[in-house]
Every structure is written in structure tokens, then in C-alpha cells.
């Protein structure tokens, strides 16, 4: 519905009054609070439709005054490159944007609840207006959309609104989550032209650390969602080894953010690894390794190449890792969770459940194109981790009920018939019945659990080695080796669980690794195995 007649002009006058106040060399709070109380008295800050219109027009005005008229050039006169460079050096004057940002900050500071408006109501409302203006501008302008004024607006707000200490100021946690919700609404899949500005804001030192530190992990789900938004956007482009320059630039920026998280907030990456692996393409090995290499700061990892390292005796190896992602959501969505539970419980002989499982993993053709694979990767990931967790749980309850010392999953011959039982039936059936691509995805799902010392790492390390030892075809052993090797030959970091599994595979005579023909199928492969085994000590 159009704005009331004359409303836009009225707002324009108010905005120019405000800019004049901002231009004064030094203004004290009384001038600001007086101006804002006038806005309140004129009913512009009630949080109703008029409020929406008021801030939308303010934002449109501040952005329109922000970009100086471009040096006009005949469209044909500039090459694409120089036109783009011109845009890059486009002189932006941010006075109007800074003034608008400052007005919002001071409204948050001075608006009084007794006049029917409060920070808790107004900020989300102003941000949702902001989101709509950006989405609309991006949709209309498309290639000529200029993200920088909006970037400037949010930088001002993050520095002035989000910088308070959220632990002290619980109201500030709401501020942070309001920004997180706005960034989610402006995620790259929705506003691709704002992707670079978005990642810089989301990882801003006044936002990301605050959200991850305050009442942790209360703020974590908000940031996890933003990181998944980013991975979802990049996923189709990261499937290819060759990245175009813009994607490569975004990818390197993402790596920097992940390294800051790995260094400062490793527990965040540990607890959400599962949901991140769902949206990182299998070919994006180093980025996934960064996430899988995270381990809790209070943990000391034994050097994997320590001779005769007794992994089974590590205290942490029997502890379950914290998984904050939704593990069985995909199984429920596909309505196969109940059948899995039933199978794990009763393990019926000759059940068709196992042979049909492979079909359940296949995507309809239409979705296969979009997904870049014929398989439902999140479903495979979910089944592998869920079944493994059930097996570990039963194994631990079984051993505690026998009052025996916690049954160690040993890398030796399977000591516990259960471990080889229902869960392993499922894994062995999959590795036999899936085709090459499906088997690779299944093995990836298992290898994604090889992380820091915990009982998942231990169990899934055993699963891989057991499947290798029991494999009925060479190709299975080759693919198990391939999944491990391709994660080891990329630049560091390498997850601890991956290293100890590969070392066990090449050292333990039980797997007879070096006699497998594929280790010598070509000179460079032979050299590769030797160099990787040397680097593993």
C-alpha cells in the first residue's frame, strides 16, 4: 500500500533536520534525546505500520544520498574491467548512512518504554525493514546492485549496538540474535550480490565472538545456522576442483573464518561437525578437514605416530562426543528410522530391509541434477552416524551390565559379537550393494567421524578397518584406502582419528596392506603411499 500523501516529504524534512544535528561539531545528549522524543510524540516510533514506513524511507534516503553521482561515462567507452574498477573506486560518501545509523542507535538508547516503544520491539522491526529494503534493492538492481552502503550501515550498528558485553548485558544477547536473524534472512542464497559483505559482517569481531561467547552455547545455534547458510550457497560451486575467481575468493575468506573458529572456538566446530559435513561437498576435502580437526581446548592429543600408542587405553576414547546437530532428522524425514530401530533390535534373518536400503538412498532424477549426485548424502550421513551411535550405546550398556570393564573396541579381531552384529550387518550390506559412487559416499560418512579421541572416533575407526579386513572385493579395500588417503594428501590440518586409522591400516599385519596389489598399481601411487606413510611416521 502506498505511503500516505506527503509522508515521504515529511520524513525527508525530519531526516535533513537530523543530519544538521549530526553535522554540529559536538552535540550533547540533550539535543539528541529532544529530537527523539519529538519523533515519539509524533507517533513514529510505536512499532506499527507507520514505524515501518518511517524507517524504510529513512533508509532509502540515506542510501540514495550515499552514492555520489558516478563519473558519467558512455557505456561503450569503458572496458568491463575498467568499469568494474570504476565501481570499486566509486567514491562513497557515508555521511548520510552514518547519520541514519546513529539515529537508530540513539533511538535504542533514548526511546522510552512509557511512550510505547522499546529496544526489544524496535530493533527487530528496524532490522526486518532493513532486510526487505536490501532484498528489494538487490532484486531490482541485479548486477548493478551496490552492497557497500548497506555494509556500512551494518558495520555502524555492529560497532555501536552489538559491542556491549552480552554476558553483562543480557538484553544485548537479544541484539545479537536480532542481527543473526537479519543475516540469516540476507543469506547469500537469498541475496547473492551481498555475499562478500555478508561474510565480513557475520565474521566481524564485534559480532561472531560475542555470539559464540555469550551464554555459550546459547548463541551457537544462531551462528551454526549462518555457517550452514554459507556452505549451502557455495556447495554447488565447490564440487568442482577449479573455482572461478569470485568463488575462490569467497572460499579463501571462509577458510580464514574457519581458522579463527578452529583456533578460538574449537568446541563449536566439534559439536556441529555433523551438520557442516552435510553441506560441504565431498570433494572439498581440506575445508572439511579443518572442521574435523577441531578438538576441545582442554584435551591433549597423543602424537599419532608414537610407537605402540595404546589408543584403547586413552581415557577419552570411551567418552561420547557432544553432538549438537540433528542426527536422525533425515532418517525421520525419509521415514526409515523406525525400520532401522526395528532391525537393530531384532536383527531378523534374510530381512529385505537391508537389500532395499540402497534404493532409499537414491534421489529422484530431478533432485539429482541439483544435488550433483544421485545419492541423498545427508541421509547416508545420518544413517551411518545414527546406527553407529546405537551400536556404541548398546555396547556400553552391555559391558556395564556385565560389570565388565568398559568393553574396549580393539583394533584387533572383533572381540564382541554384538559389535559385528546388527550395525555391522547394515554397514557390510551397504558396502557390498552400493555402486562405486554410493560406496564412496558411505565411506565418507564413516570417515567424517574420525576426529579427536572419543568413542565415535574409536568405533568408526574400527568399522573402517573391519570392513577393509572382511572385504570380499579388492575395490572395497581400494576405496577405503582412497577415502583415507585423499584426506591425508591435502595440506594440513589432518584429523587425529584419520591419522591413527591410516597408521593402523598400514602397520598392522592383520590388514596385510602392503601386499594389496593396488598399493603398487603405478609408480606414482607407490611413491604416494610411501610418502604418506613416512609423513605419518
Amino acid at each position: 500500500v502506498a505511503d500516505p500523501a506527503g509522508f515521504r516529504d515529511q520524513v525527508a524534512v525530519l531526516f535533513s533536520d537530523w543530519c544538521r544535528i549530526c553535522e554540529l561539531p559536538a552535540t550533547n545528549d540533550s539535543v539528541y534525546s529532544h529530537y527523539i522524543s519529538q519523533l515519539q510524540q509524533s507517533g513514529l516510533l510505536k512499532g506499527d505500520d507507520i514505524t515501518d514506513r518511517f524507517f524504510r524511507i529513512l533508509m532509502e534516503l540515506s542510501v540514495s544520498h550515499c552514492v555520489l553521482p558516478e563519473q558519467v561515462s558512455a557505456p561503450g567507452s569503458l572496458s568491463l574491467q575498467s568499469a568494474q574498477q570504476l565501481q570499486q573506486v566509486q567514491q562513497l560518501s557515508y555521511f548520510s548512512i552514518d547519520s541514519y545509523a546513529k539515529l537508530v542507535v540513539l533511538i535504542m538508547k533514548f526511546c522510552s518504554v512509557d511512550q510505547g516503544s522499546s529496544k526489544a520491539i524496535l530493533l527487530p522491526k528496524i532490522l526486518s525493514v532493513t532486510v526487505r529494503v536490501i532484498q528489494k534493492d538487490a532484486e531490482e538492481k541485479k548486477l548493478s546492485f551496490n552492497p557497500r552502503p548497506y555494509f556500512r550501515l551494518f558495520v555502524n550498528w555492529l560497532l555501536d549496538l552489538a559491542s556491549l558485553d552480552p554476558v553483562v548485558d543480557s538484553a544485548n544477547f537479544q541484539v545479537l540474535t536480532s542481527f543473526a536473524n537479519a543475516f540469516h534472512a540476507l543469506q547469500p542464497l537469498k541475496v547473492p550480490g551481498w555475499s562478500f559483505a555478508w561474510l565480513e559482517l557475520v565474521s566481524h569481531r564485534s559480532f561472531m565472538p560475542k555470539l559464540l561467547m555469550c551464554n555459550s552455547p546459547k548463541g551457537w545455534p544462531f551462528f551454526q545456522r549462518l555457517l550452514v547458510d554459507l556452505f549451502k550457497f557455495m556447495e554447488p560451486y565447490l564440487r568442482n576442483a577449479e573455482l572461478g575467481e569470485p568463488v575462490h575468493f569467497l572460499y579463501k575468506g571462509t577458510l580464514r573464518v574457519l581458522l579463527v573458529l578452529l583456533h578460538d572456538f574449537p568446541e563449536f566446530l566439534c559439536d556441529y561437525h555433523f551438520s557442516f559435513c552435510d553441506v560441504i561437498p565431498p570433494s572439498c576435502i581440506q575445508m572439511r578437514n579443518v572442521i574435523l580437526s577441531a578438538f576441545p581446548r582442554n584435551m591433549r592429543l597423543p602424537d599419532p605416530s608414537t610407537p605402540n600408542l595404546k589408543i584403547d587405553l586413552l581415557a577419552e576414547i570411551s567418552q561420547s562426543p557432544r553432538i549438537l546437530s540433528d542426527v536422525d532428522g533425515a532418517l525421520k524425514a525419509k521415514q526409515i528410522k523406525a525400520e532401522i530401530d526395528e532391525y537393530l533390535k531384532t536383527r531378523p534373518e534374510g530381512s529385505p530391509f537391508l537389500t532395499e536400503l540402497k534404493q532409499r538412498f537414491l534421489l529422484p532424477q530431478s533432485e539429482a541434477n541439483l544435488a550433483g549426485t544421485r545419492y541423498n548424502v545427508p541421509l547416508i550421513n545420518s544413517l551411518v552416524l545414527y546406527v553407529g551411535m546405537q551400536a556404541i550405546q548398546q555396547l556400553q550398556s552391555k559391558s556395564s551390565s556385565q560389570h565388565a570393564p568398559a568393553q574396549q573396541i580393539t583394533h584387533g579381531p572383533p572381540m564382541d559379537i554384538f559389535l559385528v552384529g546388527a550395525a555391522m550387518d547394515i554397514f557390510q550390506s551397504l558396502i557390498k550393494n552400493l555402486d562405486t559412487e554410493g560406496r564412496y559416499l558411505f565411506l565418507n560418512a564413516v570417515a567424517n567421524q574420525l576426529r579427536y579421541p572419543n568413542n565415535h572416533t574409536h568405533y568408526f575407526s574400527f568399522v573402517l578397518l573391519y570392513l577393509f579386513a572382511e572385504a570380499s572385493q579388492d575395490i572395497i579395500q581400494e576405496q577405503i584406502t582412497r577415502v583415507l588417503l585423499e584426506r591425508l594428501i591435502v595440506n594440513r590440518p589432518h584429523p587425529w582419528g584419520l591419522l591413527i586409522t591410516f597408521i593402523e591400516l598400514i602397520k598392522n599385519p592383520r590388514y596385510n596392506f602392503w601386499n594389496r596389489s593396488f598399493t603398487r598399481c603405478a609408480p606414482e601411487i607407490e611413491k604416494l603411499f610411501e610418502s604418506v606413510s613416512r609423513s605419518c611416521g
Partner: protein
Amino acid sequence: LGIDLTTLGLNLNSSDNLHKTFGSPWSDEPARGEPEYCIPSCYC
């Protein structure tokens, strides 16, 4: 084969948190904090 992540401008061996000086995902320079000028105590 990925890239050498130590070339992205982050001091991964730092004992301090990296986020305090994280400038931007696009730069391999730490954020320039506010330069701290100090008046030598004898001048105060």
C-alpha cells in the same frame, strides 16, 4: 590439494584469541587496533 593455511595471514600458533584482531575474511593483515600512544610517564 588445498592450500597452505599458514599463508592466510592468521597466526595459528598464537596463544591469544585470533578474533580480537580479525580484520576481515579478505585480508591477510590483522585488524589495526587503535594505535596506543602513551605519554612517557616523566611527561605527566
